[in-house]
């Protein structure tokens, strides 16, 4: 069942990439769109079969692979990964749909996108540390190529920077995984088997540090974030959507699954520092966003800030805050996806993203009124205005974290008001005012430019009004995670004796 999610896009990628006869851009686009929609629908089918009350992994698939290595092909899904898998499916469809139809080398491009989809899903589904790592590394190659080939002017620099950062992140993570398995004397990398392990605290710190920095690069957390603005600015719009919407979530997912999940004890000790780190990240990202003049960079820095909330909630590790991390991941995925799409449309039509050059784009005749209205909505969602999904997830983050780390939480809240500052700056400069003379004759906006944004906007409002549609899938899992880690922290002797 789960394998379909991985292998269907791989097959799609092979077909699009290597079908012997000539394939037009249109056909390759249609095939890949069809495949991605099929994958998305399949993930929805899985969701409908998902048993909400069960905390453990479901739809488990197991195949021994390289036994000498301890590598197994073990897949499973739980309340933490399910929403992310669905988000990935949705955003992949949107990314393919919103790709420029006249893109260069379409077959290569679409097969890379599908490959990216497969590897990301693989990472979310993997129940084996090595398998996770494999997917985590594989994902890097298509993404690297997608930035390096179809990016902007400085794409080479941005892509290489991304590649190196992520590779380092991979090395650190892998080192920690190995250290964990070696030190604990386990014979396998299966997640369930190393799950309950308990090591001397010093070793735990060392290993957790690797995980933290490794995933911290991916999330990204200050000061490991500088690859992100560059990658976003250079990447094309669909890639930015995927990067912000899904790929960053690999970092937070990894942090929760392997940081909090594997090292509850060390985590509990480090938590205050992590929360402080989160607050620094939030404020740093927000302040940097204020100073940006490139819309895309602004949204990218806002991502840095908003991903910080997840770390805060993860550090607090209360049942509520952990649930909030899932919500915040989804809401950030949808909102930043929407914002990148809209910035992409503005860029496509006007040829610039500079907020000092653009103005008055809300103009109903000569501007981009609907895109502008959606942008207003998107930034308001990002600033945490009620009625949209950003509000409830941020509220739960704060409400969940406040009892544990009041000061850090308050500082993070300052971040939300700074979010309002920079995004208001953006909307006021770019969309309000008189239509600027630089952009007098814009090509008309097609419905295909608008549809993906409208879909995301509807989801943002829908989940904002009815957040229990998100909460129900993850609540059991996150609560179980907390119960487990609390048990570990409180009763280390019991765990050791096992």
């Amino acid at each position, binding site marked *: 069942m789960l394998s379909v999610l991985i292998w269907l896009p791989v097959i799609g990628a092979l077909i699009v990439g290597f079908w012997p006869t000539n394939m037009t851009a249109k056909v390759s686009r249609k095939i890949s769109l069809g495949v991605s929609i099929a994958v998305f629908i399949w993930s929805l089918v899985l969701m409908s079969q998902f048993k909400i009350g069960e905390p453990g992994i479901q739809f488990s698939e197991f195949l021994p692979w390289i036994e000498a290595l301890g590598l197994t092909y073990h897949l499973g899904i739980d309340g933490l990964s399910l929403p992310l898998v669905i988000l990935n499916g949705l955003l992949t469809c949107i990314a393919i749909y919103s790709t420029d139809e006249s893109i260069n080398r379409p077959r290569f491009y679409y097969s890379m996108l599908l490959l990216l989809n497969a590897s990301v899903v693989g990472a979310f589904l993997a129940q084996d540390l090595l398998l996770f790592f494999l997917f985590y590394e594989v994902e890097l190659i298509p993404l690297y190529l997608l930035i390096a080939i179809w990016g902007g002017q400085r794409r080479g620099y941005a892509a290489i920077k991304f590649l190196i950062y992520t590779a380092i992140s991979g090395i650190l993570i892998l080192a920690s995984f190995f250290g964990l398995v070696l030190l604990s004397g386990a014979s396998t990398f299966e997640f369930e088997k190393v799950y309950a392990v308990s090591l001397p605290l010093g070793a735990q710190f060392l290993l957790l540090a690797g995980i933290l920095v490794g995933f911290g690069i991916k999330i990204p957390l200050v000061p490991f974030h500088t690859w992100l603005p560059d990658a976003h600015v250079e990447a094309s719009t669909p890639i930015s959507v995927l990067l912000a919407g899904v790929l960053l979530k690999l970092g937070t997912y990894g942090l929760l699954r392997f940081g909090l999940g594997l090292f509850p004890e060390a985590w509990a000790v480090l938590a205050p520092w992590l929360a402080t780190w989160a607050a620094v990240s939030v404020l740093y990202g927000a302040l940097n966003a204020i100073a940006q003049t490139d819309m895309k960079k602004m949204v990218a820095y806002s991502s840095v800030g908003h991903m910080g909330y997840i770390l805060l909630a993860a550090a607090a590790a209360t049942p509520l805050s952990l649930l*909030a991390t899932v919500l915040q991941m989804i809401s950030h995925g949808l909102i930043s996806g929407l914002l990148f799409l809209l910035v992409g449309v503005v860029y496509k039509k006007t040829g610039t993203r500079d907020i000092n050059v653009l103005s008055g784009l809300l103009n109903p005749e000569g501007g981009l009124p609907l895109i502008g209205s959606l942008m207003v909505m998107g930034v308001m969602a990002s600033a945490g205005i009620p009625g949209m999904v950003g509000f409830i997830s941020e509220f739960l983050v704060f409400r969940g974290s406040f009892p544990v780390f009041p000061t850090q939480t308050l500082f993070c809240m300052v971040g939300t008001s700074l979010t309002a500052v920079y995004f208001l700056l953006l909307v006021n400069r770019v969309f309000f005012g008189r239509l600027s003379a630089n952009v007098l004759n814009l090509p008309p906006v097609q419905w295909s430019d608008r549809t993906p944004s409208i879909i995301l906007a509807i989801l943002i409002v829908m989940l904002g009004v009815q957040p*229990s549609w998100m909460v129900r899938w993850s609540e059991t899992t996150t609560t179980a995670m907390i119960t487990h880690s609390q048990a570990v922290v409180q009763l280390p002797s019991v765990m050791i004796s096992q």
Partner: protein
Amino acid sequence: MRDFLIQTSWWVPLYGLIGAVLTLPWSTGIIRRTGPRPAAYFNLLMTVLAFVHGTLVFRATWNHEPYEIVFHWLKAADLDLSFSLDISSLSVGAMELVTSLSLLAQLFALGYMEKDWALARFFALMGFFEGAISGLAISDNLFLTYALLEMLTLSTYLLVGFWYAQPLVVTAARDAFLTKRVGDVLLLMGVVAVGTFAGSLDFPDLYEWAETATLSPTTATLLGLALIAGPIGKCAQFPLHLWLDEAMEGPNPASILRNSVVVAAGAYVLIKLQPILNVSPVALTTLIVIGTVTAIGASMVAIAQIDIKRALSHSTSAYLGLVFIAVGTQWTDFALLLLFTHAVAKALLFMSAGSIILTTNNQNLTEMGGLWSRMPATTTAFVVGSAGLVGLLPLGGFWGLRLGIDDLWIDIPWLVPVLLLVNALTALNLTRVFRLVFLGPKAPKTRRAPEVPWPMAVPMVSLVLITLSIPILMQSLSLLPDWMYINQGAVLLLVGSGLIGTISGAAIDLRRNWSRPVQITLRFLQDLLAYDFYIDRLYRLSVVFAVNQLSRLNAWIDRYVVDGLVNLVGLATMFSGQGLKYNVSGQSQFYVLSIILGLSLLCFLMSWPMLTVLNTQL
């Protein structure tokens, strides 16, 4: 039937929202060949429904115990976020005030905005506005209240920014949003904190908690201050008051609502919070201080304004300052009564101002004059509105202020002069404005001034009648005091202060031209008041400057220290600086190189564990 009405009372706020949604085909430009007026009609219809439904609910709740409706919105982990609604005659009455003023303002807008092709967007926002405020009236849960306040912030931003192509509107909308947002975020901190301490966000639970709460004084103070920050922003109180002046750039029908019920919504929340604020005496004192400063300061600033909307809007801040004093001294009955009477009278004054602006294409008081005999409805509206606001004739404002003086008479007598001063200054200001606009010779811009058409005149006249009948309404709700218990000294003082204000307003020398006082001190004083004590400049030099510089510094550090360091140490060694920095790649070799690099890295990583594992096994 009664049960059904009460059970469905939560529909009332939804009508406005439904109206807002119904305008979408026009406001998003899907329907372009025909005009946007159907959207306006839908909204009016929805507001009529809300009004009628609300009236029925009000009759059903009258003389009955409050009724509670609870919606379980979100149960997440150990948190139960439910929306509880308090259906009492007080809350439903407040809701009625909102819907009725909204109805009148929308009808007024039909005339005022008839030449505006963005009518659909305007009515959508008005519907949203109405929905949020009427929801606020019946909300019995701090979380819901907070959420609705934020939605008000958003809709204020959009309404002030309605004419987004106008440069001053752009800054006004931004400032309105950010100022309110500062208050909102502080309030959010308070909400999160109090939710954690009390374990619930329902007001009754919070009240119960507040009675027995044992917080450290610092925590209690911080909590109290955070909770009042939201209302300070919403009610345009010092130091978060500047937005209201700027918000006058927005369309006048929205100003009618903004100056009557929107600011009142903030104060209403404050009244709801009042029992919780009891945990912090500092917060209560702060309320009194802020209220006093704003009430007196804004009253004086209003007198120096030459813009008709601003002359009225600063007086809104002043009256809300009195409400703050009332809450700070825990006289909530005074607060509520003043809010109610102020809302009605101020709405009427703004309607009058709207029809003056539309007729004369002008907001400058120094360029007006002689309108009275040609504009009966507008003139009457202004006179009655003023009378309803000032404590002089036995209309709403008089009874409201009288109650306040009575309440404070024994407890905190030093606040009584504040009330009297505000009353006198308001009377002076309104008399001044009346003389400038309606009396005197005709000015060029007021030379031809036919009275406004019926869509604007009807709401104006209706509100005149409502304002005049407020004492009767109060009598029927037994809100008027018995003659025996009236504090005659208080009444004399109140009427005296109103009279002094009116007479001095009638006597002062009014300058209609641009020339300014020759005397340097007078001139300085006039400018100081006209430009609102230069507080906006103060902000620009302090907060705005600080945030700006901090973000620049941060960006510089990010670029040259963090990124530079990483590039230098981590990466520069691996590639030539040239290739890395500005690689204008397009050459396929480079891709191949990077792919090979990536793959070999992967292979290396893959083989390393194998080696290690083998190592251990050997």
